[in-house]
C-alpha cells in the first residue's frame, strides 16, 4: 500500500469514528431523560474517546498525505475543506476538555462529517503546486486560517444549540423561520453529497463544447445530467440528456446544474424528514436540549470567538498580506477571497463590540455566531466556486 493509500484509509477511519461518536454523543444526551447526569457523563466520555481516536486517524491522514505529496495538503478544495473538518473537530476537543458538554459533540461532529463528505466530492488525487504556492507560507498561512475557522465554527455550534433551545417553535416568528432555514441549508449540503456520490458511483459523464464569456472556445465535462446547457453548447457525448435550458455566457451552466440537483435532492430529503417526523427539523432536536445550560453555551460561543478571532486575524489577514507581498508583489489587491477575509474580520470585530460594548449576550450573540459561520462557509464555497479570483484553485 502506498503512502497515499494509507492516507486515504486513515481518513475513512476518522470519518467512521466521527460517525459513531456522533451517535454516542446523541445517546449520552438523550439517555439523560430524568436528568441523571451520571450516564451523560459516562457515555459522553466514551464518545469523546472515540472522537479522539478519530482525530488521531485524521491527523494521520494529514501527515501521511503531506509526506506523500511532499507539500502540506492545504492546496486545493478537497484538501482545504477536509482540513477544515479536522480543525472543527480539533476545536471541539479543546472546548470539550474545558466544559465537558456532550451536546456540543452531538451537533459539531455531524457538521464536521458533512464538511468532510462535501470535501470528498472534489478531485482527491495528489496535485502538484503551481509556482505561487511553492513556499512555506502555504503551510503557515493556510493552517492558521483553517485552525481559526475550525474554532470559530465551534462558536456557531454553541450558538445553534442555544437557538434550538430558546426559539419558540409553537409561534410563527422570524427567528423560527431563519432557524429552520439554517437546518434546511444543512440538508441541502447533504443533498449535494448524496447526488454527487450517486453520479460518481454510476460514472456519469457528458462532454460539451461551448463559447465562454470572452468568446473563446472551451470544453466542459458534466458529472451530473445537464439541466442547464452552457452558452452555444455542442454535445459530444451522444447518449447524454439534452439540456433543458440554455444559459447566456455569463452564467456557468455546469455549476448551476450541480446547484440545482443539490437543491432538488436536498429539498425532497427535507420534506421527507418533515413528513415522517411530522415536525420542523429544529423541533426534532428541542426535546434533547432540555438539560442544556444556556449560560454555558453562551460562554462557549464567546470563548471560541476570543480564541478564533485573533488567530484568524493573524492567519487570514497578517500572514496573508505578508505572503501576498512576496508572491504577488502587493500585500492587498481586493481579490474576492481577500475581501471576504476582511469581511469576516469586520464581522467578528462588530460581534465583539456589540457584546462587550452593548451587552449583546445570549440569543443575539448566538445569532451573530451563526451568521459568522455562514460568512466563513460563503467564503469557502461561493467565493471559491462561483466568484472567480486568484484563490480559485479548485
Amino acid at each position, binding site marked *: 500500500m502506498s503512502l497515499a493509500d494509507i492516507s486515504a484509509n486513515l481518513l475513512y477511519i476518522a470519518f467512521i469514528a466521527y460517525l459513531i461518536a456522533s451517535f454516542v454523543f446523541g445517546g449520552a444526551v438523550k439517555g439523560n431523560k430524568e436528568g441523571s447526569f451520571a450516564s451523560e457523563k459516562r457515555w459522553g466520555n466514551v464518545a469523546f474517546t472515540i472522537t479522539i481516536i478519530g482525530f488521531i486517524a485524521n491527523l494521520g491522514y494529514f501527515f501521511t498525505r503531506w509526506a506523500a505529496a511532499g507539500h502540506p495538503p492545504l492546496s486545493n478544495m478537497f484538501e482545504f475543506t477536509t482540513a477544515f473538518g479536522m480543525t472543527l473537530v480539533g476545536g471541539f476537543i479543546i472546548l470539550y476538555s474545558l466544559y465537558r458538554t456532550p451536546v456540543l459533540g452531538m451537533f459539531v461532529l455531524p457538521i464536521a462529517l458533512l464538511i468532510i463528505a462535501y470535501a470528498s466530492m472534489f478531485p482527491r*488525487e495528489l496535485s502538484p503546486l503551481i509556482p505561487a504556492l511553492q513556499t512555506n507560507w502555504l503551510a503557515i498561512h493556510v493552517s492558521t486560517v483553517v485552525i481559526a475557522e475550525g474554532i470559530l465554527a465551534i462558536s456557531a455550534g454553541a450558538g445553534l444549540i442555544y437557538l434550538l433551545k430558546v426559539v419558540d417553535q409553537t409561534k410563527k416568528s422570524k427567528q423560527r423561520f431563519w432557524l429552520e432555514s439554517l437546518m434546511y441549508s444543512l440538508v441541502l449540503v447533504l443533498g449535494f453529497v448524496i447526488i454527487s456520490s450517486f453520479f460518481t458511483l454510476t460514472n456519469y459523464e457528458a462532454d460539451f463544447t461551448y463559447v465562454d464569456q470572452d468568446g473563446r472556445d472551451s470544453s466542459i465535462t458534466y458529472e451530473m445530467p445537464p439541466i442547464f446547457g452552457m452558452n452555444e453548447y455542442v454535445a459530444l457525448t451522444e447518449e447524454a440528456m439534452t439540456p433543458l435550458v440554455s444559459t447566456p455566457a455569463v452564467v456557468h451552466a455546469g455549476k448551476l446544474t450541480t446547484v440545482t440537483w443539490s437543491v432538488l435532492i436536498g429539498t425532497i430529503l427535507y420534506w421527507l424528514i418533515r413528513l415522517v417526523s411530522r415536525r420542523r427539523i429544529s423541533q426534532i432536536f428541542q426535546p434533547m436540549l432540555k438539560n442544556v445550560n444556556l449560560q454555558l453555551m453562551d460562554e462557549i460561543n464567546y470563548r471560541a470567538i*476570543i480564541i478564533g478571532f485573533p488567530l484568524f486575524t493573524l492567519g487570514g489577514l497578517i500572514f496573508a498580506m505578508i505572503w501576498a507581498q512576496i508572491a504577488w508583489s*502587493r500585500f492587498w489587491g481586493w481579490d474576492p477571497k481577500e475581501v471576504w477575509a476582511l469581511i469576516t474580520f469586520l464581522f467578528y470585530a462588530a460581534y465583539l463590540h456589540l457584546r462587550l460594548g452593548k451587552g449583546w449576550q445570549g440569543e443575539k450573540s448566538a445569532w451573530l455566531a451563526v451568521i459568522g459561520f455562514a460568512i466563513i462557509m460563503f467564503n469557502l464555497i461561493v467565493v471559491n466556486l462561483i466568484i472567480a479570483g486568484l484563490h480559485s484553485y479548485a
Partner: protein
Amino acid sequence: MEKMQCQCGHENPPGTILCESCGRSLTEKEQNSKLVDMRYEGTARRSQTYNKSIIDKIWNFFSSVKVGVSIIVVLLVASAIGTILPQHMYVPATGEAAIRDYYADVYGVVGQIYHFLGFHDLYSSFWFIILVGMLAISLIIASLDRFVPLHRSLKNQRVLRHYSFMNKQRIFAEGEGAEDSFQKAESKLKELKYKVSTDKNGLLAEKGRFSRWGPYVNHIGLIIFLFGVMLRMMPGFYVDETLWIREGETRSIPDAPGYYLESESFALETYTGEEEEARFGDAIERVGSVVKNYQTDVVLYQSQEGSLPGSADEKEVLTEYPIRVNQPLKFDGYALYQMDYKLNELKSMTFVLTNKASQEASEEFTIDLINPADFYELEDGSTVELLGYYPDFDGFENGEPRTATPLPNNPGFLVEMVTPETPEGETSFIIIQETIEPFGENQYELKFQSAETRHVSGLTVRKDRTLPILGLGGLIFMIGVAQGMYFNHRRFWIQQKADGTFILAGHTNKNWYGLKKDLDEVSSFASLPAYTDQQEEIEKQEKKEGDEVK
C-alpha cells in the same frame, strides 16, 4: 458646567458618576441602583457630559459604539458588493470606454448598472475612502473618550473607599474575621502576585491592570496601519511599475534611477508527471498541464557614480539572480517580481532577394524587428532600403499602412529594392505570407526564409516604504488584542472596621470565575467573612419574581 463636590470633600470633574476619591455615587440614578456601574470606573467621559456645541456633537457621534459598529457594518456590506462582479483591474479590458463596454457586453443590464454606480472601482471610490476615514476618526475619538478618564482614575486610586462603594460591588462580604486576618490576607494576595497597597485600616490588591489598556492598544495598531496605507499616496513612498524585458535585452529599471536590468533568459517549466512527479500523474492528466516554474535569469547593473545617465558602458554588475514567483530580486528597497510573460515574440526575420523569373536568389540578410537597419547592401551590389516599418500591422489608413502597437506581432515592411537590372528601384510591401506591389508588377521580390523568436518577461518593479509601518501597526494590534482578551484586571478592597469586623469587595473586568477562585483561596487562608455574588443574587431574585408572576 460646575465641578461636582462629593460629601467627602473631593472635587470631581463635571459628569463624574462615582467620586474619584471615596467612590460614593454622585448621580441619583447610581445612588438608586443596587450595583455600581464599574465599566469606566464611574469617571466623567466627555461624550456623556457635554452636548452643546457642534464640536460636542461631532465628538459624541464618533465616540459612540453604536456609530462605530454601524460604520463597520456599512464597510462590510460595501466590500461584499464589490465582489459580486470582478473589479475593473481584473477584467481583460483597458481604457475607460473599453471597460464600460466589457461590463455591458458580458454582464448585460446588471453589468451596466454595476458600472454606472461605480461599483467596478468600488474600493478606490470617494465614498469608500470616506467611510474608512470615518472608521479611523471613530477609532481615535472613541478611544480617547474612554482612555483618558479611565487612565486618570486608575492612576489615582485610593485604598480606602466609602462603604456605599464597597457594598455595591458585585462581590461583597461583611462580618467577623480572625485577629490576624488582615495581615494574612495581605501576604496571601502578595503570594498570588497581586500588587498590594495599604492605608490605615484598608488594603487594595490589584492584578493585571495593563489588560484594561488592551482595546486602546489594538486601536492604536489599527490607526498606525491606516496611517501607513495613507502614506503610500505620498510621492517617494511607493513605486509600482511594469517592466517588459526581452531575452538578451538590457533596460533601465523604471523609477529606479541608475539601475539597469539584463534578461539572460526566461523559462516556463511544466510538470512532466514522470519519475519524481509520477505521484501527480492523475492530476496532471485531468487538467492537462500544470506550470511548475516561471523564471527570468537576470543581471542587475548599477551605473558608476558620476557617469552620465544612459551611457552604456559605465555599468557595474551588482548581482545575478533567477527571479521566480515567490522569490523576487531585492535591492536598495526595491523588489522585482516575476508577474507575466510572453512566449516566442518575433526577434528578427531573414529574407533573400529573388529574381522572380530565374528564381535566382541573393545571400540571406536579416532584419532586426526591434531596431531595424534602414539599408541592406548585398554582395552583387543590390540594395534593399526599408522605407517604412510597421511592427504590428493592422490595415491601411488613408492608403498608409498602420501599426496597432510598437510590438513586433505582425511586422510589415515597405521596401525599395535596387538591383543592377532594376536601377530605378522597385517598391514592395511585405507582411507575413503576403507581398503587395503597389506600383505594378515587380521583377524582384523578398522571399522570407526564417524567423528568430525569444521570450519576454513581464516584471513588476515595486518599492513600498510603508511596509515597516504597516507591520508595526499589525504587531501592535495583535499585542493589544491579546492583552485585552487573555488577561483581566482583578481588584480587592478590604477594610477592618473599628469594631474588628471586615468589609471586602472584589471587581474584575471579566472572568468572574477566576476572581472567585482567587478570593476563595484568600478567604480560607485568612478566615475572612464569606462573600456573595450580588449579581447572581439579583438574577435569582428576578427569576423567582418572574416565576411567581407566571
